[in-house]
């Protein structure tokens, strides 16, 4: 073959090729320009995000204390296993190993990952909360092989055991996806722990801390190659309740084994001293993930353990309502001179209404009507007053309205009136309905807290308070409460009427009263028993007068009679008669009185600013952290705080910080 004889390739074609190459190279240069000059900022951010890993440092929630500073709710450290999902392509193969090491199923991990698939990649997933030391060791040992696994220290809630004060305190849990969509949760992230009920929910903003974070540099395998920054977590603030642990313990024990609710309150201030609802639940089970079975059991339990009956049960107040009737009757100047002959029943509007004492009470005036709880007297009074005047006083005392207590989901209750009937049933009020309202039946439904507040106002001669579990003065500055306390308007009660009614109430626990068995010598309790049908508002229509429902027992009582310091309401579900509720209530009152007597007056100062002398009782002031007896920590859920201080040992003397030894010895016996 001969080469070189043929014509050459035309130069024009080679030139064309050169221009074509130039064009292609300019295109590539433009590609570089676009990425490196025009959009460089964007890609530099992406490169940063690629290699910076953020691990949150979780803030512990604030402790919850009782009114004397004793710890009710604490935290304990626990480790959670975190899975980082930044390199999903490498993760799949490691899932079986992770599942094995953490003792969970591989499917569980995959389901979890799918659930978080729509969340940003840099957000880690908690794949197992509360892991064991073995599992922590597994993660640490496999750091280089499975860099996607991290541990995180979590401060878990430690609640008192066995549901002590569970409804008051509430519980915490992961913020739900529904909540995250609400505006007030815009600052929260998936997986954040928030209060779900009770004080935990109401004061979540105070208790919740601010999470910190640790930012570190990682390579594409998620291996940490350097630290960037460390922002420490800000712990939540502690919250002091008005609850008194000693009273709470007495209330818990008094209601143990029964169903119902107890509230103790200082009627002067509205401080809730104790709040119990039974049956109860153990909030510790919510502190880690609660199992579906356990949750279902709680939700379907006919006793409604998750319901805080103290503020959520809406029931007929029964005869306790007669105190409100008495006030209405007195203020309307009907009850003063009223005298009724009770022969076991009376007929109104063509229907016979029976008295609970079948044989009748004979001649009854207001005082006797109260301590004997005569139905006929109050039927008659109700007929004379009419529903509008009854409703006026009952509403003035707060019935049929939320009390505004600082706890979530308080129920409203019902105080019927003509207007209420028309609005809800499109029907006129029948005069006959007024008669049963007179003894706290019919359409009347109150929550325990509502009823207690009404009686508290009467005990205080008309002074209305808003019950609260946290003293508003104790709240941190700048904190905006979840709910505004409603405006209060005192109720006028003539002193003479007040005296008569409260005197009559103090005879309820005397031999002539309805609950003599609840009497405790030396304590002057003014109260009122009640019993009412167990029919909630919803089922009222269907089950009216169904004997299959045991009656609820009620008792509301306070002490001392003229200068009340504590008022206790007891709802004893299925308790049949108020005297059983009264016995429960008096145990709580006794705990309070005993404590007051032990403490006595602690200091007596001659002049303000001058030296004060401590006189008797407990030497250290309540809430003083140095006092080992009164600041018993509730670690591990124990709540057997000693009610009586240790008897001081005479030989050693008592160690009192700033009191001369001679004076201390003088009172030690």
């Amino acid at each position, binding site marked *: 073959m001969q*080469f070189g004889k043929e014509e050459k390739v035309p130069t024009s074609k080679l030139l064309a090729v050169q221009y074509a*190459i130039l064009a292609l190279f300019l295109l590539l240069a433009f*590609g570089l320009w676009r990425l490196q000059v025009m959009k460089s900022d964007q890609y530099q951010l992406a*490169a940063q995000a690629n290699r910076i890993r953020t691990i949150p440092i979780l803030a512990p929630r604030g402790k919850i204390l009782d009114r004397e500073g004793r710890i009710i709710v604490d935290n304990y450290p626990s480790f959670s296993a975190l899975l980082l999902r930044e390199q999903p392509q490498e993760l799949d193969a490691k899932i079986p190993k992770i599942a094995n090491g953490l003792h969970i199923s591989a499917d569980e991990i995959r389901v979890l990952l799918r659930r978080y698939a729509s969340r940003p990649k840099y957000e880690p997933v908690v794949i197992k909360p509360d892991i064991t030391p073995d599992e922590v060791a597994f993660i640490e040992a496999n750091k280089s092989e499975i860099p996607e696994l991290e541990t995180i220290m979590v401060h878990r809630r430690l609640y008192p055991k066995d549901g002590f004060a569970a409804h008051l305190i509430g519980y915490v849990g992961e913020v739900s996806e529904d909540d995250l969509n609400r505006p007030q949760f815009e600052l929260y992230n998936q997986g954040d722990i928030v209060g779900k009920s009770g004080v935990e929910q109401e004061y979540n903003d105070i208790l919740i801390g601010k999470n910190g974070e640790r930012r570190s540099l990682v390579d594409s395998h998620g291996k940490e190659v350097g630290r960037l920054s460390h922002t420490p977590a800000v712990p939540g603030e502690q919250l002091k309740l008005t609850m008194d642990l000693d009273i709470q313990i007495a209330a818990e024990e008094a209601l143990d084994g029964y169903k119902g609710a107890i509230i103790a309150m200082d009627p002067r201030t509205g401080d809730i001293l104790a709040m119990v609802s039974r049956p109860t639940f153990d909030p510790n089970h919510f502190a880690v993930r609660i199992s579906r079975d356990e949750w279902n059991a709680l939700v379907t339990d006919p006793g409604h353990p998750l319901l805080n009956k103290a503020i959520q049960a809406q029931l007929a107040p029964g005869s306790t309502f007669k105190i409100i009737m008495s006030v209405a009757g007195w203020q309307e100047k009907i009850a003063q001179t009223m005298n009724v002959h009770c022969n076991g029943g009376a007929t109104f509007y063509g229907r016979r209404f029976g008295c609970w004492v079948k044989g009748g009470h004979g001649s009854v005036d207001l005082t006797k009507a109260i301590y004997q709880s005569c139905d006929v007297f109050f039927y008659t009074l109700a007929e004379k007053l009419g529903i509008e005047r009854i409703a006026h006083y009952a509403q003035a005392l707060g019935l049929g309205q939320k009390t505004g207590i600082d706890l979530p989901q308080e129920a409203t209750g019902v105080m019927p009136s003509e207007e209420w009937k028309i609005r809800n049933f499109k029907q006129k009020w029948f005069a006959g309905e007024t008669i049963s309202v007179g003894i706290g039946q019919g359409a009347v439904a109150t929550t325990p807290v509502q009823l207690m507040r009404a009686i508290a106002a009467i005990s205080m001669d008309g002074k209305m308070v808003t019950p609260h579990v946290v003293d508003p003065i104790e709240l941190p500055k700048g904190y905006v409460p979840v709910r505004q306390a409603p405006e209060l308007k005192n109720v006028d009660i003539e002193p003479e009427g007040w005296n008569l009614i409260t005197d009559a109430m103090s005879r309820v626990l005397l031999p002539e009263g309805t609950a003599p068995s609840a009497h405790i010598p030396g304590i002057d309790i003014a109260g009122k028993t009640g019993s009412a049908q167990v029919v909630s508002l919803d089922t009222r229509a269907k089950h009216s007068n169904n004997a299959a429902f045991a009656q609820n027992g009620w008792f509301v009582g306070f002490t001392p009679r003229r200068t009340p310091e504590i008022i206790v309401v007891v709802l004893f579900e299925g308790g049949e008669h108020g005297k059983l509720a009264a016995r429960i209530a008096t145990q709580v009152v006794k705990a309070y009185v005993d404590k007051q007597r032990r403490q006595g007056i602690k200091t007596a100062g001659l002049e303000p600013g001058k030296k004060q002398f401590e006189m008797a009782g407990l030497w250290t002031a309540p809430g003083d952290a140095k006092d080992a007896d009164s600041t018993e920590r509730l670690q591990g859920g124990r709540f057997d705080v000693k009610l009586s201080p240790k008897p001081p040992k005479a030989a050693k003397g008592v160690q009192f910080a700033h009191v001369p030894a001679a004076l201390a010895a003088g009172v030690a016996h």
Partner: protein
Amino acid sequence: MAKQGSFRDFDWVLLGFVMAISALGVLQIYSATISTKFAEGNIYVKQIEWLIAGMVLMFAISRIDYHIFLEYIHWVYLASIGSLLAVAVIGVRLLGAKRWIRVPGLGLFQPSEWVKIVLIIALARYIASLNQRDVTWPDIFKAGLIAGVPFLLVVKQPDLGTSLTYLPALILGLFLGGINYKQVGVIVLCIALVLPVAWKFGMKQYQKDRLTNFLHPENDPKGTGYQIQQSLIAVGNGGIFGKGVAGGTQTQGMFLPVTHTDFIFAAFAEEHGFVGATAVLLLYFIVLMRLIQNAQTAPDRAGTLIIMGVVAVLVFHIMVNIGMVVGMMPVTGIPLPLMSYGGSSVLFMFLALGIVMNIRMRRFVN
């Protein structure tokens, strides 16, 4: 005049620019692997060894008159087809593709790399033999057959990326050989008709995905989409002046895939920025222009066509590789000549350069 030609006529300028690019490649391989598992293997040293071997090969090839290659190319061509068939029959399957033959004592050998240079010479010989008369349809068909047989054999391996590198030499050869616009029009029309069918029936889903993912890398964040995404981030992260040698977080953090081979330009662009990347483009452009100049001064038509075949393959590699790195082309696994790590790639380049030098040294023969 001696038929040998002398080293005085050797294109030292071209070699200088080629070595400059190779040196940048070595530097980048060093920087890219400094913090990876390859660091211990010192693969940049291996690359230098390959380059030295390539230079030796280049000088050796330049001593042999390229007309001898042209003379016997049909036998070599047949041998190449034979080797590709051997791959199909007794080839070694790795990573799902049958591309290699095990040569006892030497290890794995990938014939499709060498077919490239054989094909360039074979096509040059055939097109030169047409002697500048108008290219007829049978001519086009025969040229198409010369490239088409190895093309299909390699497609079957499957190795779409390498097989595509066979086509630019054919296209450029036909263009320089004197194909007219009418024929171009008919061919383009035929391809336009065949392509959708081939797309539908001839290609596997993963191949289609690879070819389309570059348009929407976010659709496939785990596979090739992830690679493109990381590559774009690396290039963009470089900015105008780059992050400095061994300073690219995408490269050093191993977010960028295969930083020392297919994505070496992304690593370079991250560490040296727009300024460095365009400088490399300029170096390549100079090399290509110098090659075309050599093609122009070649003693005969076949020499011109050989050099232009090399230019075509080179341009194709650069376009596809850098195009992939900047997100304008799909991920095909085609290395960047002279920069990417790899013996086959280096040896091919220097073999081709040896033939180019060879042709240049004989420019005054007649």
